């Protein structure tokens, strides 16, 4: 696909925002102010952004426990997300969901999910709805390598094929499910082939290269929007932090993350590619870096000073009517 400068700037801003959001959370969490389990997305930004860049708000995504990147890429308000992660009353989910349950239906973000494999069946449903509406909407389900061992994910893929639903299954193979390697837990460690066996278009790509991700996604969208059925995309990537914040990460090879950060980092690669496409772009990228830093600063400041929910809020929002 041909890429213009605005495309470059837009994608870069998204990736940088995710990176900054997560790196900052990594620090803030150490202050003890943020409760619960937090799973950071740093390192995988190119996947979320490459996939979501070609979607609009009418298209839907379902996410995972590691959902911040997907939320930001799909257009969730960064400050409202930060408020939610801090458990504030004005958080995106009023402090009831937290990091693992962020959703914003306005922008087509149908929810992160604390249950591995919980999302794909839901994505198939949203895809069915798109079909019934005779729209060209698609529904994307994000998942990890580990999730490709959860029965619900296979059921969802088969059903999408059977119903020719415009669902796109995006597998981010970061090599780990918690403290265990995909080489061990994922038989054959080839999720693309698993998907293909159901009879769907299945592609694999480089999850550190946002351009490759975006190209694969473009092919997937062409297929799905045309009514030709579901698509599966597997991207190799890596996470920079632990499975959750606090993970001792004894499973890492020596220097594994530093190596990744210096050699294959998606932002670093992007800058190199970008300057080839638009030689004069670096100042603008620097400006984005600065703007994003300010955005995250203010989001954190807002979150810290925002009021928590009150005890009465526990009882509200269980039912529409009861």
């Amino acid at each position, binding site marked *: 696909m041909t890429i213009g400068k605005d495309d470059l700037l837009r994608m870069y801003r998204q990736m940088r925002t995710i990176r900054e959001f997560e790196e900052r959370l990594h620090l803030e969490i150490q202050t003890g102010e943020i409760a619960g389990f937090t799973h950071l997305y740093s390192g995988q930004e190119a996947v979320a952004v490459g996939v979501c860049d070609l979607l609009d708000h009418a298209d839907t995504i379902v996410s995972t426990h590691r959902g911040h990147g997907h939320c930001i890429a799909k257009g969730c308000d960064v400050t409202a997300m930060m408020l939610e992660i801090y458990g504030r009353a004005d958080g995106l989910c009023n402090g009831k969901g937290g990091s693992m349950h962020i959703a914003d239906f306005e922008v087509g973000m149908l929810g992160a999910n604390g249950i591995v494999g919980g999302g794909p*069946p839901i994505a198939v449903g949203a895809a069915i709805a798109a079909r019934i509406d005779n729209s060209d909407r698609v529904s994307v389900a994000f998942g990890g390598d580990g999730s490709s061992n959860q029965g619900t994910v296979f059921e969802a893929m088969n059903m999408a094929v059977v119903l020719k639903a415009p669902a796109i299954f995006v597998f981010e193979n970061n090599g780990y499910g918690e403290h265990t390697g995909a080489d061990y837990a994922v038989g054959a460690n080839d999720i693309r082939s698993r998907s293909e066996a159901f009879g769907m278009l299945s592609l694999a790509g480089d999850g550190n290269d946002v351009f490759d991700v975006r190209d694969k996604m473009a092919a997937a969208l062409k297929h799905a929007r045309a009514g030709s059925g579901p698509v599966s995309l597997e991207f190799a990537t890596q996470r920079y932090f632990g499975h959750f914040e606090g993970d001792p990460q004894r499973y890492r090879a020596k220097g594994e993350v530093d190596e990744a950060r210096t050699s294959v980092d998606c932002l670093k690669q992007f800058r190199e590619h970008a300057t080839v496409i638009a030689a004069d772009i670096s100042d603008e990228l620097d400006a984005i870096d600065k703007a994003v830093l300010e955005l995250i600063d203010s989001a954190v400041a807002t979150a810290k000073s925002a009021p928590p929910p009150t005890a009465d809020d526990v009882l509200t929002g269980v039912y529409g009517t009861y």
Partner: protein
Amino acid sequence: MAIKNIREAINETLHHEMERDPNVIVLGEDISGGAGTPSGKREAIGGIWGTTGGLLPKFGAERVIDTPISESAIVGAAAGASLAGKRAVAELMFADFIGVCFDQLYNQIAKFRYMFGGDVSCPVVIRLIYGAGMNSAAQHSQAMYSFLTAVPGLKVVTPTNAADAKGLLTTAIRDDDPVMFFEHKALYTKKCEVPDGEHLVPFGRASLVRQGDAATVVAIGRMVSFAEKTADKLASEGIGVDLIDPRTLSPLDEDTIIDSVEQTGRLIVVDESPPRCSVAGDIAATVAAKAFSSLKAPIELVTAPHTPIPFARELERAYVPGPDKIEASIRRCVGYQ
């Protein structure tokens, strides 16, 4: 008004609601049947219980969806479609199959609204065909509405006659919350007068099936039919009881039950499930907490035993609480000084 059985009432309600609202869709295994078969003929079955017949020819395969044998994907797809603007009605041909899709029911559907801040709706209906009476043995006969009644965020409905089946299913489909709609396989052929045209039965309103002041009998699902017989028999002896059919287990109409107990002072709860953490126990506990001062006798719980459901006719008959057991409990309760 016309005489219909529950199967007919449910089928007609599905037809009516699909006509009324293009966003209503139906999905499940063999809902229509025949897809991908040598005959190529659709409508090979119309649902193994015959409740979804005629929908596919009328509304098409886009809205009447035969699925693979993948209950997690069925319930999840129903949920996702409902989050995306549809009103999905999914059938679990045996309620016992909640085991293979329980996460989608209790961690997903039930919690979306709350987890996401209170404004999100998932207007899905799950039809669960349940209960003993056909010698389908341990994995095809259970009455486990207690599992779902326990889950905040779900509504649970147990129609016991054709009129309520129509009225409650209509309400369920138009409700913005997830509804677990339990249909007892042994009640499908039960007939009664069913109102024509629009008929909605509100949730959280029990029906008083029989009236009397000797005791309060709360019966669930198929147990209502058995309790009716017993109540009539005892009435002929001058022992009149209030027989209450809660109709919806969540929300539960506590007021009607408590008001009755305040009159009668005696409570018998009849439930086809095993006793532990059952709806019977739930109702008994509620009364013991909220109507204690009115109670004149120990609460009687008439339930199945704490065993799986056996296959043989003689065994299943002994397993299911019958009119005899109900009668004995009522007499014991009424006779208590």
